């Protein structure tokens, strides 16, 4: 990728800044060749790769180096985009929002600082991956559970800071204390860590006064150098109930049946209901089922379900905890389901620590059209109301059909809210199809806004659209975020444009792709 300079920075100034960065981290950790820039592109982007092209990357190894780099970035007005491991696939990968931004690659800061099985937490640096932490737990026989997202290649810290989630729930809810470096280089510890040697840093979330952890999550006020994360002790037993529903309309009664049990705590994790398509995209190619360029029609879907032995909606429902409690909860779940259907659901009992480890297997879905593929996720949050969930599904599926794309949706039902993750797969080399993908995405944002639903997370290219949809009192929250941004980061050097929050130095870039 050819060099795109940071806005307003001359080539000579840019080279000077890189030299200054190199004096901090060593020349081998300033990456600025065309090939280096290529490695930070969003390979799955639905738009132009140049929209989110980095100009260089710099990789610190310590908090002191992060401080020194921020000083230089302020002096030379170089915007930095921090990444933990850069595996935010479907949302922009390792790329920055604004072209020309320098990546602050935190991958070298990869220490597992502490894992405490008695009190159930770990303290991590950003470069620690799910595989690393998993191996650490297994090789040290630590009986703690790890909430693992679909793509286990990424960073535990980065995932929590993006509000990633798994059936165990929203991982950012488990954050309990951060060490952050502010744009002026000051190091702050949040919560109980604000006390020098604060003993309850990873144990009690709020400390004294306002809580800052969530100010940093999905934001751009600081660089996170350590994160304390709660982990749940391993369960004694687990029960998996195989939910396999034959009709698209079964979604409504299933939500009606299960959402109250989730709210009451009978079901411990999120209830996940995934459409048939997810069973096909990982192990098969689209042309094995259908050659048309429109959305896969119902008769083919019926064949797919039959051949793969899956339902229209699928999801293992997991109950975990002490085995007698699991059995009692199983009875409640089956009784509740029996009120709505005569269908039987196979039950599998297993040890509570028989949790599958991290995997990258789901990434295979991007191969759906063969050749170079891409994926993007559209994920609005809505009430866990059966009728509204059914309507959301039907409205969304109609949009996929309108734009000739294959519907692939999952509803994660929490007690109160439901998160509807919609996956859009495409061929990277089909410009016409990518155009339809972008049209679909914009239509979905508009539809959700009309219903009063908003996305919990989005791709770089849609951050401004989604931020705009949070429009109470003429986007008062966005304006507040930007006032805080300007106060804390007057030169706007940290992650300009992240989640639609633009510092004054780069505000003209809002909406620019």
């Amino acid at each position, binding site marked *: 990728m050819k060099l795109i300079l940071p806005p307003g920075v001359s080539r000579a100034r840019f080279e000077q800044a890189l030299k200054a960065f190199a004096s901090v981290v060593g020349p*081998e*950790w300033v*990456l600025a060749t065309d*090939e*280096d820039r*290529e*490695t*930070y*592109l969003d*390979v799955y982007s639905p738009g132009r790769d140049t929209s989110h092209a980095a100009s260089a*990357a710099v*990789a610190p190894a310590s908090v002191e180096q992060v401080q020194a780099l921020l000083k230089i970035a302020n002096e030379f007005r170089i915007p930095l985009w921090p990444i933990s*491991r*850069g*595996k935010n*696939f479907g949302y922009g*990968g*390792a790329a920055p929002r604004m072209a020309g931004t320098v990546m602050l*690659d935190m*991958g*070298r800061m990869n220490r597992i600082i502490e894992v405490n099985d008695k009190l159930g937490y770990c303290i991590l640096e950003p470069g620690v991956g799910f*595989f690393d932490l998993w191996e650490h737990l297994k090789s040290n026989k630590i009986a703690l559970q790890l909430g693992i997202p679909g793509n*286990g*290649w990424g960073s535990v810290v980065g995932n929590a800071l993006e509000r990633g989630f798994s059936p165990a729930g929203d991982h950012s809810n488990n954050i309990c204390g951060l060490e952050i470096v502010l744009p002026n280089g000051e190091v702050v510890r949040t919560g109980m860590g604000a006390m020098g040697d604060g003993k309850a840093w990873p144990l009690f979330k709020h400390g004294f006064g306002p809580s800052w952890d969530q100010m940093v999550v999905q934001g751009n006020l600081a660089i996170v150098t350590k994160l304390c994360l709660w982990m749940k002790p391993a369960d004694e037993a687990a029960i998996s109930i195989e939910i396999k529903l034959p009709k698209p309309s079964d979604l409504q009664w299933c939500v009606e049946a299960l959402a109250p049990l989730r709210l009451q705590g009978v079901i411990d994790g999120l209830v996940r209901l995934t459409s048939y398509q997810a069973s096909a995209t990982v*192990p098969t*190619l689209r042309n094995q089922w259908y050659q048309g360029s429109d959305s896969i029609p119902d008769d083919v879907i019926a064949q797919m379900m039959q051949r793969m032995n899956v339902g229209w909606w699928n999801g293992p429902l997991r109950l975990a905890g002490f085995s007698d409690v699991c059995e009692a909860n199983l009875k409640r779940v089956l009784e509740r389901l029996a009120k709505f259907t005569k269908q039987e659901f196979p039950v599998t009992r297993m040890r509570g620590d028989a949790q599958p480890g*991290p*995997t*990258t*297997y789901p*990434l*295979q879905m*991007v*191969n759906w059209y063969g*050749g*170079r*593929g891409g994926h993007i996720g559209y994920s609005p949050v809505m009430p866990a109301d059966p009728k509204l969930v059914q309507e959301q599904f039907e409205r969304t599926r109609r949009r996929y059909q309108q734009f000739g794309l294959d519907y692939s949706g999952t509803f994660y039902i929490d007690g109160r809210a439901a998160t509807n993750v919609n996956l859009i797969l495409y061929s990277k080399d089909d410009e016409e199809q990518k155009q339809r993908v972008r049209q679909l995405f914009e239509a979905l944002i508009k539809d959700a806004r009309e219903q009063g639903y908003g996305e919990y997370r989005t791709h770089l290219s849609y951050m401004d659209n989604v931020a705009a949809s949070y429009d109470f009192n003429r986007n008062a929250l966005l304006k507040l975020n930007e006032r805080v941004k300007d106060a804390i980061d007057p030169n706007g050097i940290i992650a300009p444009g992240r989640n639609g929050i633009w510092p004054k130095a780069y505000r003209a870039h809002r909406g620019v792709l």
Partner: protein
Amino acid sequence: MKQLLVLLALAMPALGLAEDLSASQLAGQKVFAHRCGMCHREGGTGTFVLARRLGAAQSLLEQRTDLQPETIRYVVRWGLTNMPRLSRVEVPDPDMNQLVAYLTRPRPAAAP
């Protein structure tokens, strides 16, 4: 005990016990395990996609004897079909050299 032996036999290729590896190749094997193994060992997504494209015999990179240094370097940095790219923070140049040494190591001739 029998189970243990079977497990050891299965683990041998991964542990480097089956072959005498040089220090650089052994280091490269560690790089492979840490940076590539999650997709390119048995059951990984890279192995699956390669099997679909080239057949099962070509799907496990550690068993391939036809990998060229330049191809490895290119694919790591530029990706291939759906494989994301790995930066020089993730696989620094010295690690890349070790990885190449491992994946292109001369193999003992196959038994007749």
